[in-house]
């Protein structure tokens, strides 16, 4: 070699401070000159090099996400939580389509009569319960056994999934409710019962499989609606002021019970082998 890179240029090259033309000629020389390579090594800031490498690796490592994960990540949810949600049986496209179909049915059934509105208000709170019942548990989640044996809290997993399921279902139902706007505020009277029934399903899941908990809650709900109607003679009685207060109280009680029983989520809730 007839020439070597002067120290100042070498320093600037090492810190990334040269123009690209100078960098290119320095690189061409460095590939063939052991002396300059040896002088370059101590001048390089390893922290900067690691940061560059980390950036490259992060890009290469980016895996393509399925559509649901992608949508969730866009909504500001972490990739990890998105993957836990993507494994939720009641967050699949087919499930959400079934919920949408049920909402359409309920809206069509709900003409302006009290009977029609009662059908919609009775059906609407049942949809999130079905979602919660199918969000978790041996019957719904094929890899449930692995989730039980993992250090991830089962209660947390159930809550993360249930919040997502109840949220999406309520959003879909709310769109249906808007179509019933001529019924006024009463078209929204399903919301608190929906939260109450979902909370009771969660609370019961500490002791029985969520599918059974959901079944029990739905049966109880239908019984309550029919009883209230028979006793008062008013189909919309369960959705009046008293009904709303009761729903709120039940929600609070169910969540309290859930928190109190959180240690029951440690093991498989199934009774038989």
């Amino acid at each position: 070699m007839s020439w070597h890179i002067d120290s100042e240029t070498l320093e600037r090259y090492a810190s990334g401070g040269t123009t690209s033309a100078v960098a290119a000629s320095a690189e061409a020389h460095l590939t063939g000159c052991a002396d300059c390579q040896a002088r370059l090594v101590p001048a390089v800031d390893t922290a900067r090099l690691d940061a560059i490498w980390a950036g490259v690796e992060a890009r290469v490592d980016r895996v393509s996400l399925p559509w649901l994960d992608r949508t969730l990540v866009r909504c500001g949810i972490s990739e990890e939580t998105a993957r836990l949600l993507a494994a939720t049986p009641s967050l699949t496209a087919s499930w959400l389509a079934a919920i949408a179909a049920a909402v359409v049915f309920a809206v069509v059934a709900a003409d302006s009569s009290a009977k029609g509105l009662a059908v919609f208000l009775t059906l609407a709170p049942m949809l999130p319960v079905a979602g919660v019942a199918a969000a978790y548990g041996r019957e719904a989640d094929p890899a449930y056994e692995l989730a039980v044996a993992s250090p991830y809290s089962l209660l947390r997993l159930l809550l993360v999934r249930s919040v997502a399921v109840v949220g999406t279902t309520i959003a879909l139902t709310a769109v249906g409710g808007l179509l019933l706007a001529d019924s006024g505020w009463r078209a929204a009277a399903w919301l608190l019962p929906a939260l109450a029934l979902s909370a009771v399903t969660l609370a019961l899941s500490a002791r029985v499989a969520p599918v059974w908990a959901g079944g029990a809650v739905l049966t109880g709900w239908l019984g309550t609606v029919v009883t209230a109607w028979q006793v008062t003679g008013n189909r919309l009685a369960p959705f009046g002021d008293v009904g709303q207060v009761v729903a709120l109280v039940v929600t609070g009680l169910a969540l309290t019970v859930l928190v109190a029983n959180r240690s029951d989520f440690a093991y498989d809730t199934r009774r038989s082998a």
Partner: protein
Amino acid sequence: MTGVRAHEVTKTFGRTRALDGVTFTSGLGVTGLLGPNGAGKTTLLRMLATVLAPDGGRIQLLGRNPQDATDRLEIRRRLGYLPQEPGFHRGFTVFEFVDYVAILKELTDRRARHDEVRRVIDAVGLREVSDRKIRALSGGMRRRVGVAQAILGEPELVVLDEPTAGLDPEQRLRFRDLVSRIGEGRAVLLSTHQTEDVAALCPHVVVVDRGRTVFDGTPSALTSTADGRVWLSPDRTPAARLAWRTAEGDVRNIGDAVPAGALAVPPTLEDAYLLLVGEAAAPEVAA
């Protein structure tokens, strides 16, 4: 303390006594849990995987008590588990599914987690199908996905429930190789009803029959329990507890003692196992 200690463990489902006092201790290396179908192997392994709580008796895993919440969390952090019928989210790809389990296993740093997911997928030889959906895989490949997730995060205790069931001989060989490598420096518990698996893999064997431990020791000690109790004859001998005609045309008999004049032969692990658990294990070869 490494490994597993079980003392007088019991479990009842309704009116069925699934475990009726199981006691054994196992340390590093592969321990084979052998027993006929319905002996309680899966119930026991589900307890060792902290999925079920025992009704009675004591279990200690990695020196900790799975009944205690803090201890249980610590055990689960060091545990790998392949259930008997591992379920999969079939719409996930292999990578996505293993990544899902890795998230449940609290591998929170994304890049480190992805590296670990790729490592275990490589370890079971599924690199080529890593982007394929689970529903598109063969049964043998799915089982390997199950093993891959079980070795995520270098667990200290690995519980494998019948990992070789339904595999062809070549796949079974691959599995033995894989499991023996997993067993280096770790406590592995493996259930099977194949004595060949135990003979090939396990320095320690526990035999469970009708919910009770009936043997706990080395495979050669198990084999020697049948010393002087196996013989060949041209026809079935009345003294035999079990007898079957072999491919060579002789009848292989196992019983309490070789009758006078019969040709005694050295026992195999299978002979000893059959003697121990009797007809329950071998209705198809029963005399």
